[in-house]
C-alpha cells in the first residue's frame, strides 16, 4: 500500500490540472458536450454508488430524485423568478424529504423486490407529473427562459462554464464518498451490503443507516437533475423522470466497479465514449443500438468480472508488481 499512496497524490494533482485545463484546450462544442455528459453521469453514478454500491441497495428508481430536483428548481425559477442555484439546493432538500416515505416503503423489501419497488415509485412520480397539469405543465413540459449570460441564474453562454459547474458537482460527490468510505458509516454500509442480517446481529442499526445514506444519495441526484434541465433549457416528465437515468446511474457503477470511489467515473468514461463513437459511426438513425451495446457490456462484466473495470485494472497492476523485483 505504501508504494501506491506515494504516487496517489501527484496523480490526483495531474488529473485535476488536466480536467481544469481541458475546456481551454478543447474548443469543439461537440467534444465539450460529451465531456459534460461524462461528468454529469459520473456524478449521478457516484450518488447512486453511495447507496447502491456500498450498501448494495440496488435501486433502479433514482430518476425520482433527478426529476424532483429538476422540477423544484424549474418551478421556482419559472413561477417565482428564484435563481436555480437556490432552486438546486431546494431540490436537493425536496429529494431528501421524498426519500423518507419512498425508503419507508421500499426498504420493506429486500434484494430484487427492493429494486422493483424503486422502479415503481419513480414511474409513479412520473405519472403524477404527467397527469396533474396544474402542478407542472403536464406532458408538454416547458422551456426554461433563456436569459443569455447570467451566471447568477445558472445560465452561461459557453459550454466551458457548464463544464466547470458539473466538474464541481462531481468533485463534491467524490469528496463526500471519500469522507464516508473510511468512516463508521462507510463500514456500516459495507456490512449491510455483505449481509444485512449479520450486520444487524452485531449491532448495526440497518434501517437508520439505509435511511441516512438514501437521503444523501437522493440529495446529490437531485442536484444533477437541476443542472441537466438548466443545461438543455427544457423540462418534461419523460425527460426528468426518464427510466434511462435510473438505468445509467446503476450501469456506470457496476461496469466501472460497484462500491468503489472511482468505479462510477471509470464506468461512465467507457459507456459514454462507446455511445459517442457509435453515434458518430452510425448516426442516431438506428434506435436501440446504444442500449443494446450497454446491455452486452453489462452482461460481459457480470459474467467475467463482477468487480468491474476497476477490478481488471487493479489485477493487472498487481500482476505487474509481482513481476517486478521488490524494492521500497
Amino acid at each position, binding site marked *: 500500500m505504501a508504494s501506491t499512496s506515494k504516487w496517489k497524490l501527484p496523480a490526483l494533482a495531474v488529473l485535476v490540472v488536466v480536467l481544469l485545463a481541458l475546456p481551454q484546450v478543447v474548443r469543439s462544442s461537440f467534444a465539450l458536450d460529451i465531456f459534460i455528459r461524462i461528468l454529469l453521469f459520473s456524478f449521478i453514478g457516484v450518488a447512486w454508488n453511495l447507496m447502491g454500491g456500498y450498501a*448494495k441497495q*440496488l435501486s*433502479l428508481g433514482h430518476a425520482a430524485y433527478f426529476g424532483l430536483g429538476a422540477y423544484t428548481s424549474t418551478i421556482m425559477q419559472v413561477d417565482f423568478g428564484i435563481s436555480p442555484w437556490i432552486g438546486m439546493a431546494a431540490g436537493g432538500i425536496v429529494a431528501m424529504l421524498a426519500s423518507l416515505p419512498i425508503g419507508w*416503503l*421500499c426498504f*420493506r*423489501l*429486500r*434484494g*430484487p*423486490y427492493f*429494486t*422493483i*419497488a424503486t*422502479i*415503481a*415509485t419513480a*414511474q*409513479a412520480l412520473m*405519472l403524477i407529473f404527467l*397527469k396533474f397539469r396544474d402542478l407542472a405543465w403536464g406532458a408538454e413540459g416547458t422551456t426554461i427562459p433563456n436569459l443569455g449570460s447570467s451566471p447568477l441564474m445558472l445560465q452561461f453562454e459557453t459550454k466551458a462554464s457548464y463544464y466547470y459547474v458539473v466538474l464541481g458537482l462531481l468533485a463534491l460527490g467524490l469528496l463526500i464518498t471519500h469522507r464516508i468510505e473510511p468512516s463508521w458509516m462507510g463500514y456500516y454500509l459495507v456490512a449491510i451490503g455483505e449481509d444485512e442480517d449479520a450486520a444487524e446481529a452485531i449491532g448495526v442499526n440497518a434501517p437508520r443507516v439505509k435511511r441516512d445514506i438514501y437521503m444523501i444519495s437522493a440529495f446529490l441526484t437531485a442536484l444533477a437533475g437541476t443542472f441537466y434541465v438548466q443545461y438543455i433549457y427544457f423540462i418534461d416528465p419523460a425527460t426528468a423522470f426518464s427510466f434511462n437515468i435510473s*438505468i445509467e446511474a*446503476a450501469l456506470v457503477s*457496476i461496469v466501472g466497479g*460497484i462500491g468503489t470511489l472511482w468505479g462510477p467515473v471509470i464506468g461512465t468514461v467507457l459507456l459514454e465514449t462507446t455511445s459517442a463513437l457509435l453515434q458518430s459511426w452510425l448516426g442516431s438513425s*438506428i*434506435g*436501440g*443500438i*446504444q*442500449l*443494446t451495446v*450497454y*446491455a*452486452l457490456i*453489462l*452482461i460481459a462484466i*457480470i*459474467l467475467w468480472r*463482477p468487480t468491474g473495470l476497476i477490478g481488471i485494472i487493479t489485477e493487472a497492476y498487481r500482476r505487474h508488481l509481482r513481476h517486478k523485483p521488490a524494492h521500497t
Partner: protein
Amino acid sequence: MLETLAQAVINGLLIGGIYALVSIGVTLIFGVVKIVNFAQGEFVMIGMYISFYLATQFGIDPILSLLISMPVLFVAGVLIQHFLIRRVLGPNDMPQIFLTFALSLLLLNLALMLFTANYRTVHTSYSDEAFHLGGLYIPVAKLIAFVVAMGLSGALWLFLHATDLGKAMRAASQNRDVATLMGINPNRVFAVAFGAALALAGAAGSLLMPFYSAYPFVGQVFVLMAFVAVVLGTLGNVIGALVASLMMGVAESLGIQFVGADSGLIVVFAMLLLTLAFKPNGLGGGRVR
C-alpha cells in the same frame, strides 16, 4: 350501473388470465431458481412476434401458433438457464438482478432494431366476434385466451403435484440442499423451471396476438403487472400468483371504467405501494424475500 360493474369485472378477469401466465412464470422461477427474472415481459413480446410472423407469413392462426412459440421459448429458457443464469447463482444479489435486467434491456433494444417501434396486429376471423349474455359483452378472442390460460395454469399445477419432476421442483424450491442430498439434480430442475416459465410467457404472447398489438415495449406492461401480482400473492406461490393476477386484472379494469381510460398503470402502482405499506408479505402472509 350494476351492468357496467359486471362488464368491468368480466373484462378484468379475461385479461387477468393473461397476467396469470406471466406471473406464474415469474413466481415459478423465483420459487425454484431463487432469482427474479426481469426479462419475463420480453419473452411475452417474443411470443407475440413469433405468432405475428407465423400468422402473416404462413397464415397460421395466432392461438394455434402457441404450439410453436411455447416449445421455442422452452428451449430458449433451458439454454439461458444453462449458459447464463447458472453462472450467477449464489448469495450475491447484484449479478442476478443485473444479468436478467441486462437480458431485458438487450432483447427490448434488439427488437427495436429488428422490428422497429411500429405496432403490429393480426386480424383473425374471430377478432371482432363476441357473445352477448344479457347486456354483457364477451369477446371471443379474449374468452379463448382466458380458457387456454387457465388450462395451462392447471396443467402446470398438475405437473408440479403429480409428476416426479414436478415434485422434485417443489422439493428444490423448499430446500435446495436437502433436495440435492435426496438425489435431485438441481441444474436439471432449474433448467426445466426456467424453460416452463418462458414457455408460459410465450403462450401469453400468442394468446394476446388476436386482440393486442405487438411492439418492442409491450412486455413491460405485463411484467410490471406480474411483479405486483407475485408480491401480492406471496413470492414463490403459484396459486397465490394466479389469484392475485385475476384480482389485478379486475382492479385495473375497474380503474379504467371508473377513473379514466389511461389510469390502468396508476392503479397498478397504487396497488403495489399499498401492498408494500400494509401487506409486504403478500395477502397470504409468509416471509419477505
